[in-house]
C-alpha cells in the first residue's frame, strides 16, 4: 500500500486551473519532492493533500484515508509544515509546541514530555523559554518542524521548507529532513523550487509546471533522460557576433541557452570536443573567452529539457532565460 495515492486531482479557482488532473503515488518511507516554479501548483497540491482546501475533481488517499471524505483521519496521521510560519511569535517555543499538541487532544502530562523531547530533537532545547519572534529564520523553521511532529505523524508535508533561509539554515533543515526519514521511517513530501534541494534530498521528484506533472522519476533517471551529458558555461568579451546562433552552428553542440549578456550554457554529448570548438570560435571571431567551465547535467537542465523553459522564468526578479533548440 502506498503512503499517498493521487488520482486525476484538479483544483480550479474561478477561471484559473491551478492543478490540472495530476496522478502519482508516494511510497512509505520515501522522500518525495515536487519541483516547480512559483505558481506551478505545488502549494495547491500540498494544500489539497493536507485537507486545507477541497479538490475540484479527482481523489487523493493519504495514509489510507480519503482527503475529502475522511479528512479528520488524514489530519491525525499527517504533520504539515506550511510555507508561512504558523507558530505564534508571541508565544515561547515550548508554549507553541504544547498548545499545538493540545489541538490534537494530547493529555497534559504527555504534552510536557513531548515538548521537551521535540525541542531537543530539533536543537532548540536551550531556547524553550524564548519567544518564537526572537528566533532566527532557521530556528523558527525547526520549531515549525517540531510542531508538526507532536502527534508522531506517518507522513510529514513540507511546503518549501527552506525558502528565505540562509545557506547554513538550509543545510540544517536538510539534515533534519534526512534524519527524520532515517530514524523514524517517516514518509516525507516536500515542495521546492530549489534544484539543489530536490536533488540532494528526494528519492523521487515530480516536475510540476502549469498545474501538471511534466515528469516523475528519480533524480538520476531524470538527468539521464536529458540529451547532452555535459554542460559548458561560457562567457565572452565582447559578445559573439550572432550570439546563440554561432554556438548552435558548432558540430558538437546539442542545445544553447543564453544566461545573460555574453554568457551561454551549452549542452553537448561530447563535452571536450564542444569545449575545443568553443575555443576555436572565440579565436575566429577575435573575442576573448572570459571563462569556460564544464559541468555534468543538473536538475536545472532536466527542468529546461522537460518544460521548455527555465525554473526562474516565472520569477520576474530574474532575467529571462530561454533554451534554443538546435535545428
Amino acid at each position, binding site marked *: 500500500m502506498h503512503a499517498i495515492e493521487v488520482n486525476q486531482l484538479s483544483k480550479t479557482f474561478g477561471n484559473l486551473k491551478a492543478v490540472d488532473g495530476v496522478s502519482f503515488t508516494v511510497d512509505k518511507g520515501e522522500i518525495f519532492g515536487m519541483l516547480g516554479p512559483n505558481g506551478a501548483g505545488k502549494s495547491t497540491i500540498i*494544500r489539497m493533500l*493536507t*485537507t*486545507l*482546501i*477541497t479538490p475540484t475533481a479527482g481523489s487523493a488517499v493519504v495514509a489510507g484515508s480519503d482527503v475529502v471524505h475522511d479528512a*479528520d483521519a488524514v*489530519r*491525525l496521521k*499527517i504533520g*504539515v509544515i*506550511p510555507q*508561512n*510560519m*504558523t*507558530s*505564534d511569535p*508571541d*508565544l515561547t517555543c515550548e*508554549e507553541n509546541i504544547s*498548545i*499545538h499538541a*493540545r*489541538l*490534537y*487532544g494530547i493529555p497534559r502530562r504527555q504534552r510536557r514530555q513531548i515538548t521537551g523531547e521535540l525541542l531537543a530533537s530539533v536543537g532548540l532545547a536551550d531556547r524553550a523559554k524564548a519567544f518564537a519572534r526572537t528566533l532566527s529564520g532557521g530556528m523558527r523553521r525547526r520549531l515549525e518542524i517540531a*510542531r508538526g511532529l507532536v502527534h508522531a505523524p506517518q507522513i510529514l508535508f513540507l511546503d518549501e521548507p527552506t525558502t528565505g533561509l540562509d545557506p547554513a539554515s538550509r543545510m540544517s533543515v536538510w539534515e533534519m529532513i534526512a534524519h527524520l526519514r532515517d530514524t523514524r521511517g517517516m514518509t516525507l513530501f516536500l515542495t521546492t523550487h530549489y534544484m539543489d534541494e530536490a536533488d540532494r534530498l528526494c528519492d523521487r521528484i515530480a516536475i510540476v509546471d502549469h498545474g501538471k506533472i511534466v515528469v516523475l522519476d528519480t533524480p538520476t533517471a531524470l538527468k539521464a533522460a536529458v540529451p547532452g551529458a555535459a554542460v559548458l558555461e561560457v562567457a565572452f568579451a565582447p559578445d559573439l557576433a550572432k550570439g546563440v546562433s554561432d554556438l548552435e552552428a558548432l558540430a558538437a553542440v546539442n542545445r544553447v541557452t543564453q544566461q545573460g549578456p555574453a554568457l551561454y550554457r551549452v549542452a553537448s554529448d561530447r563535452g571536450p570536443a564542444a569545449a575545443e570548438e568553443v575555443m576555436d570560435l572565440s579565436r575566429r571571431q577575435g573575442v576573448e573567452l572570459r571563462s569556460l567551465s564544464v559541468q555534468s547535467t543538473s536538475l536545472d537542465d532536466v527542468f529546461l529539457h522537460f518544460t521548455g523553459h527555465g525554473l526562474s522564468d516565472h520569477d520576474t526578479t530574474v532575467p529571462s532565460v530561454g533554451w534554443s533548440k538546435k535545428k
Partner: protein
Amino acid sequence: MMMTRAFAIVERDLRKFRRSPFLLVAALILPLAQLVILGNAFGGNIRNVTIGVVNLDHGPESVDVHERLLAVAANAKTFLPQEYGDRTEAIQALRNGKLGAVLIIPTNYSRDLLMGHHPRLALVTDNTDRATAGGIGATMADLVNSINRPEVAARQPAQVGLDTVEIYPYTSYIQYLLPGLITLAIFITAMIGGGILYIDDKQRGLHEGYLMTPITKWELIVGFNLAGAIKGVLAGLVIVIVGSMIAGVRGWWMPQVLGELLLVTVLTSIALIGMMFFIMARIDDPLVPRAIFGVLNTLLFFPSGAVYPIAGFPSWLRHMAVADPFTYAVHAYRALLLQQVGLGAILPDLGALVLTCVLMLGGATLLFRRAL
C-alpha cells in the same frame, strides 16, 4: 476531547492577553477617560456666564431687577451681570463671545410695571450654544417669576399642587454614564480581540496552524468565542469596579449585586464577541475591522441611551435602540448599579442579550468556514 481542543485556542489567547497588556489597557483607557471627562463635562449646572445688562429705564423697578440679578450671581452663580450703556455694543459683545446673553430692560419699564401695563424684559441669547442659553433662560424665567409673585400671599392657596419625590438617591451624570461605558469596554475588547487581532492572526497564517489539526469547526467557534468572552468579562468587571469607585456608585460590592453584574457581563460579552465573530466570519482584509471600528462604536453606543435618554430620541432612532444589544446591557447595568432592583427588573434585558447571543453565534456558525 472537544473541550480540550477548544481550550487550546483559549489557552493561546489568554497567554497572549496576559503577556501583552495592550488589549486590556486599550479596552479600559477609553471608557475610563470618557467616564471622568464626559461625566464631569456634561450634566453639570451652567455657572459664571457673563451676561450684559442694558438698562434703558433706570427707574426703581429696574433697580429691583438688577438686585435680583446680583442675588443670582451671589448664590446660584449661573451668571455675572455686567452693565452696558449701549444695546448695540452689548449685542456685538454677545456675537464676539464675550457675553453669554444680553438682558435688555426697556424704556419706561418701571412706569409700565407700576401701571399694570405688562412690560416685557428682552433676553438675547447665543442659540448656537443651546445648553448655556437654556441654563440662562431657565434661571431668568425663575427670576421673572419671582418679580411677578405677590408680596402678600393669597388667602386661598392654589387648587392643585405637585410634590416630586425621588425614589433613588441623587444620581449624577457621571453615574448615569457608567453603565454605557462598562458596555463600551466590553465592546472595545471584542472589537480588538475578536476583530482586529482575529483578522491579523488569520492574515499572519496562524489560523492555518489550526486548520491542519483535527480541530473541528465547532471547536474553533467555541474556542474563539470563549477566549473573547473571557477577555470581555475581565474588562467589563474591571470597569464595573473601578468605574463605580470613580463615579461614587454605592452597593455594587454586595454579593448578590456582584453576582447579577457578573451574569449581565457574561451575557453582554458573549453577545458582543458573537456579533464581532459574525461580522468577521468571511473577512480577510485587516483594514476592515479597523475601518468599521468607529462606525460600529457610534451605531451601537449612542443609540443605546448610554449618554442621553432614549425617550428624547426621534422615532427612527428609537427603532435603532430596540435593535441595539447595547441598549439592553446599558439598561441592565443601570438597573443593577443605580437602582439596585435585582434580576426581576432586568429579565427582558437578559432575554434580549440571550437572543443576541443565539442569533449572532448561529449566524456566525452558518458563515464560518473551516477552510483557508
